């Protein structure tokens, strides 16, 4: 026989408005094994918790049901209160009579009856609960940051400054990411490189940061506290310590390809450095285009290299390390404007993407900051900026708003006006979204003070008309068709999750939203946490963001990682899956269904094993297990059946 105590919360009017609390108390009072019941205005308040603690001791309760809101809200609150009263915290259960009852019903009688059943059902469960003890797992005090854009840089610096070791892995030859390609940043118009490079330099020389560029994470095993990570450090073919950055190799290299840093607007050689401020400051040979990986064909760079820094035999290096926490900062990729057929990208030379325009604006770009159009190098007398190019268009393209495009298109127009004073800048927009500090002022400055023209409406078609581009669209404020000629069109495209974001989500089994961005553990309250303990996300890997928000998230994720790294051991919830070896036939179904990779087959012992620290207690395996051998602690078949029977009882 258990001694169950039931505490019913009014939640102000939230519950009491639709549920007759007095009647509930009257009914539950007579349920078997219920020793004590009372209601309280706010169970989660300090006095409410005191009521619970006092009752546990006064009535010698050994099981507790708190009928209030969702477990997500206050399970911890009441578990801690239970523990403080000297009772095992896993002997307390919450009955959700708010989200699952009072908020979704209107008829008081029926809602009251449902509340009674929910509480009875929870009583059946809690009676079958066993006391559990959280278990402790050791923590490797080192963090892995994946992605070397501004988010990864900031996160790595914060963790390193806090005194922990960090490994920063970047796919490209340098850190800096998309921000290093930008000309100036809204709304302050400060030079992107100038504010980013100090951070890049700091990463390069921080004693706590090991920087692995030209490297990719290949595999991640393990769990919070001890993730086992395999990193492939690809060969640069240039020995970093010997290279003196003399640039002699570049002039002799016969291979010319598009330069990724300038979004293909300029050529580069097969041996190159991404940009002068690259960190690490090192040349690299692109093995896909270099002829000399087979030195019999070409070894021109090797011949001229005085310090003998070029090594064609360099091999990939596999690095295996253990980390306590992981930050995913794998960023975004712009929506491919080739997909927007009506805008003619690729056939009309002077239709360019926002990122291409950034490079044209940049002082270190292909035109040294003079705005010249790609087709003939003329300075355009008028430029059309199209907002929402490929965005907010569920029928054909992205359905969502990418948040930053209105602002960067406005910035582009403003910068154009600053450089070509008598030029005409026209922005076609759906709405101008300027939600950010000083953003609205920035837009007002462009539209009202600096003469940027804003036309509300969508451009339907772009056509080459002689040397100029014919823009056809509609002004939705005047309901008139718009037709005008311009010299250059810049498409403000939205943001997609990057390839890296997709790859890492696969490796880590992170859940993603339908767009492919990493899903946060809670969209509001856990914005940098993921469903996997110890894995955090920062920046555009979890959705479109501007730079301030990205940097704030990076610091947030770093702080979250530090809380893990700061102790030698961490507590883990013991409500996890357990396998009954007596009935398990080792069919492997559970291994396939586990979203966390927490179940594996132990070949020597011929049995299925749950890695306790990886298990998040989701129960997928328990429902899929065909032999019924897996149960979640305190959610056994028996207890679930008893709960369901109580819910469905007749009468």
């Amino acid at each position, binding site marked *: 026989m258990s001694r169950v105590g039931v505490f019913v919360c009014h939640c102000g009017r939230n519950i009491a408005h639709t549920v007759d609390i007095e009647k509930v108390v009257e009914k539950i009072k007579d349920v078997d094994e219920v020793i004590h019941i009372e209601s309280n205005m706010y169970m989660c308040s300090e006095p409410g918790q005191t009521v619970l603690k006092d009752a546990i001791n006064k009535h010698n309760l050994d099981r507790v049901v708190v009928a209030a809101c969702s477990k997500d809200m206050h399970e911890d609150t009441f578990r801690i209160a239970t523990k403080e009263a000297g009772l095992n915290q896993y002997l307390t259960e919450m009955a959700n009579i708010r989200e699952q009852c009072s908020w979704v019903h209107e008829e008081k009688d029926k809602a009251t009856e449902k509340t009674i059943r929910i509480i009875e059902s929870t009583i059946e469960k809690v009676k079958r609960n066993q006391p559990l003890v959280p278990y402790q797992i050791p923590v490797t005090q080192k963090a892995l940051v994946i992605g070397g854009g501004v988010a990864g840089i900031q996160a790595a610096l914060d963790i390193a400054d806090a005194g922990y070791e960090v490994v920063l892995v970047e796919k490209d030859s340098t850190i800096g990411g998309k921000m290093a390609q930008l000309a100036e940043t809204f709304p302050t118009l400060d030079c992107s490189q100038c504010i980013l490079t100090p951070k890049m330099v700091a990463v390069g020389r921080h004693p706590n940061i090991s920087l692995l560029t030209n490297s990719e994470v290949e595999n991640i095993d393990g769990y919070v506290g001890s993730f086992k990570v395999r990193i492939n450090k690809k060969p640069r073919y240039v020995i970093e310590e010997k290279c003196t950055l003399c640039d002699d190799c570049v002039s002799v290299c016969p291979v010319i390809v598009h330069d990724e840093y300038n979004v293909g607007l300029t050529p580069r050689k097969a041996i190159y450095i991404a940009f002068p401020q690259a960190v690490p400051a090192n040349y690299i040979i692109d093995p896909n285009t270099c002829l000399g990986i087979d030195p019999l064909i070409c070894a021109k760079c090797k011949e001229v290299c005085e310090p003998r820094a070029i090594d064609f035999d360099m091999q990939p290096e596999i690095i295996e390390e253990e980390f306590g926490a992981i930050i995913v900062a794998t960023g975004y990729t712009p929506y491919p404007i080739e997909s927007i057929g009506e805008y003619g990208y690729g056939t009309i030379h002077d239709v360019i993407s926002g990122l291409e325009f950034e490079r044209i604006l940049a002082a270190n770009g292909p035109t040294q900051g003079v705005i010249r159009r790609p087709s003939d190098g003329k300075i355009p007398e008028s430029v059309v900026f199209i907002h929402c190019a490929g965005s907010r268009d569920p029928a054909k393209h992205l359905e969502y708003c990418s948040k930053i495009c209105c602002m960067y298109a406005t910035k582009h127009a403003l910068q154009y006006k600053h450089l070509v004073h008598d030029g005409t800048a026209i922005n076609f927009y759906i709405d101008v979204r300027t939600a950010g500090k000083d953003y609205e002022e920035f837009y007002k400055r462009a539209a009202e003070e600096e003469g940027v023209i804003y036309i509300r409406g969508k451009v339907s078609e772009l056509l080459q008309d002689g040397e100029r581009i014919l823009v056809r669209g509609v002004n939705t404020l005047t309901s008139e068709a718009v037709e005008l000629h311009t010299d250059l069109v810049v498409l403000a495209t939205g943001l997609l999750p990057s390839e890296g974001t997709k790859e890492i989500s696969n490796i880590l089994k992170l859940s993603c939203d*339908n767009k492919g961005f990493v899903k946060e553990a809670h969209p509001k309250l856990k914005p940098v946490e993921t469903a996997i303990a110890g894995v955090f996300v920062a920046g555009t890997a979890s959705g479109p963001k501007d730079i301030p928000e990205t940097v704030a998230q990076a610091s947030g994720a770093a702080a979250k990682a530090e809380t893990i790294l700061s102790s030698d051991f961490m507590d883990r919830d013991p409500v996890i899956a357990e396998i*009954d070896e*007596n*009935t*398990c*036939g*080792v*069919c*492997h*179904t559970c*291994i*396939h*269904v586990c979203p966390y990779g927490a179940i594996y*087959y132990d070949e020597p012992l011929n049995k299925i094993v749950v890695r306790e620290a990886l298990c998040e207690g989701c129960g*997928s395996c328990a*429902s*899929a*297990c*065909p*032999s*019924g*051998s897996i149960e979640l602690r305190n959610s056994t*078949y028996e207890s679930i059946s008893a709960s369901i029977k109580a819910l469905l009882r007749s009468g």
Partner: protein
Amino acid sequence: MKKINLAIALGATCAGCDVAILDLNEKILEVFDLVDFKFWPTAMDFKIDDLKNLKDGEVDVGIYHGSIRTTEDAEIAKILRKKSKVVVAFGACANFGGIPSLANMPYEKSMFDVVYKDVPSMDNPEGTVPQTSITIKGTELTLPGIRKDADALDAVIDIDYYVPGCPPMVPLIEQVVEVLKVFASTGQLPPKGTVIADTKTLCEECGRTKPEEISFKDFISPQEVQEIDPDLCLIPQGIICMGPATRAGCDALCTKMNVGCRGCLGPTDKVKDHGLKMISALTSLLDVDVEEDMSEEELHKVVDKIPDPLGTFYRFTYGKSLIYNLHSEEEIK
């Protein structure tokens, strides 16, 4: 050593269980040394009165096979219970209702109409269906009545031991003989409710290898497969195999022959509804590309490839399934 009094009674059965006992071959001689047959109408000349005339409790071990289909089946089961110290449910029918219990599905038409009128091979212009009594030339002839449902044995009597299988395989019957031997020499019996079969599932003894990813893309029938890999688990090959949900003990007779397990040994101790568990496992393993992007029709197309889902997942255990319990309860109301 005193011989054990044994009675083997039967209900709605194909008598395969009797044949299975004879499949013991020379070991059957040990059985004859061990027991005195008090009742076994399939093999010897016994009539129901021979069982009725025994004293209550005179039979040490009463074995019953077949499901409870007719009123007579239920009556015989009750008599067996009364006369026996220990009752064993023998075979899938007595354990779970077996194949006859598939007729318990609530159809629009009565079972008699389906069987005696609608079957294409039936020539029955007068629409005659079996009656419980008929008077011919002033003499009344009677037949047992058909119960509404075909049930497992424990729907009508209390059971001590369970031997599942369709029919129980020789290794399991040998285990029963061993139990009888111990009982004869020491009077000791296993704890009530014991299932004489393995506790684990078939995968344990199947021997086929499991790939790392056990998922599959499509359900296929064995006859559609060009060549079945004899060493690889059948499920990743798309062949429905009830093995993961079914008790071991048969020495993987079917899967050794490239045929998916049909589930005749029923579920493990932990599972109440055999078919439901297998459906939930298979649907978890079905790796349809991105389920949420698929339309309802596309999903149906995949699932529609399962031939006779009820007969596949509940071939032997419909009489013990939750859905059967559910609709039978509703009917009672």
